[in-house]
């Protein structure tokens, strides 16, 4: 469980996050949604200390991240798996080396055990036969999947995904969504997923928060979001013709 209390953040005087509080439950997929530029990525980075917050607190199962020293923060970070919006694969390493890397850093498995674990993760994201390619030789969607495999390689307690299925085809998107859901249930991970994609929200969104211009505008679950009266959320959910027609049908 991750609790954030009254987080605010500004970049050179411009307020990007305004007093946001929320509880991200363990074993649930918690989704952050909102328009482009509303502050979703910034919120995620504030939660893990990649952006320093101006005020507020972040509690990882009660441990107040920002009061910890360098070493204490490192201990929490070892329990975090993160998928960056741009993938952030190590471009001097092959696909397999990318996934093996966190495993070799923090476990004492043998070479073949490490490779087995990496291959297991790569298969879960439907990526076979790409082990020896370099990131520059992958398509956008393949990069994303490698990044997910790397994020789950050391069985994190907290999983952060910044737009896991942007750039993926609908079929692979669903595979990734279900994978995230599955490992969240299986290992009782606290999962936080940023998305633009209403399909994912309806597919796997247990808890949802809607960020609007840096504020927490709405929270609820996937059933509630379809019936919300909140104008901004409603406009977001029913932005596509498909969703509007679906609503009219039911």
């Amino acid at each position, binding site marked *: 469980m991750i609790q954030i209390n009254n987080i605010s953040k500004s970049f050179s005087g411009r307020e990007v996050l305004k007093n946001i509080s929320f509880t991200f439950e363990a074993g649930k997929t918690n989704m952050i949604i909102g328009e482009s530029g509303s502050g979703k990525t910034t919120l995620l980075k504030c939660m893990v200390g990649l952006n320093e917050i101006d005020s507020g607190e972040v509690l990882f199962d009660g441990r107040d991240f920002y009061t910890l020293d360098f070493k204490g923060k490192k201990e929490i970070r070892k329990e975090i798996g993160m998928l*960056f919006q741009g993938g952030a694969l190590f471009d001097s390493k092959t696909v397999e080396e990318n996934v093996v890397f966190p495993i070799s850093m923090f476990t004492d498995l043998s070479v073949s055990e490490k490779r087995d674990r990496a291959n297991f993760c790569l298969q879960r994201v439907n990526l076979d036969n790409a082990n020896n390619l370099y990131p520059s030789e992958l398509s956008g969607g393949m990069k994303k999947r490698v990044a997910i495999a790397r994020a789950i390689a050391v069985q994190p307690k907290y999983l952060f995904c910044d737009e896991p299925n942007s750039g993926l085809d609908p079929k692979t998107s669903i595979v990734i969504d279900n994978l995230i859901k599955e490992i969240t249930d299986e290992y009782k991970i606290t999962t936080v997923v940023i998305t633009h994609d209403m399909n994912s929200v309806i597919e796997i969104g247990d808890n949802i928060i809607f960020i609007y211009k840096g504020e927490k505008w709405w929270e609820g679950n996937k059933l509630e979001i379809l019936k919300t009266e909140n104008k901004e959320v409603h406009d977001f959910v029913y932005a596509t013709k498909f969703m509007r027609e679906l609503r009219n049908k039911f």
Partner: protein
Amino acid sequence: MINSVKLFFNFGRYFILIRRAFAKPEKVSIYIDRIFEEIYILGVGSLGIVAIISVFMGAVITLQSAFNFESPLIPYYAIGVAVRDSMILEFSPAIVSLILAGKVGSSIASEIGTMRVTEQIDALEIMGINSAGYLIFPKIIASVLFNPILIVFSMFLGIAGGYFFGALAGVVSPHQYVYGITYDFRPFNVFYALIKSGVFAFIIASVPAYHGYFTKGGALEVGRSSTKGVVYSSVLILAFDLILTQLLLA
């Protein structure tokens, strides 16, 4: 005023970064592998260029000395003395280090800078890895260990270059040249050169790494960091050349 504040800011940030780079490694075996990797890339990869410029420099010093010493009072073997002392005292340690600052420094700054702007450094941090230690420490150690070897290599090739081109151009006979290079030879000078090259090696690795590490922005800024890294490390090498010469030879 603003500039001196900036200077202090950079000094402080540099020392904090270097201290973090020397923090206890997460896993010693991985760091040792990294050091060998860097020795190969930074050190062995520079053998070619060091060889070429050293041979030419030795040859040029031989021909120039021969041209300047056209007086019956100066013996021919003085050419050998001149080549030996210029190579050992100044050319190999300082000029070769300047060349390496250009070659190695720009590659270090752009490698680390690219990792910064593509969030690869953030990815390391999120895994609970000390990115400064993982990226910068092996580069510094590799340079400080291997650059002195490159410098000794350069001394030999420079003196050998003088021998061959001197004989080829007929300005000094091999016999006289060899007499010259052994005449009043002081081993301390080599020791002095090695101390200098160790200090320069530290600058060559750490200053560009600093500029790369704090890159903000995109590809353009990576280029800028790389230029800054080379310029600042070159200026520092010259400054320390002066200081160390005064301290060690006075």
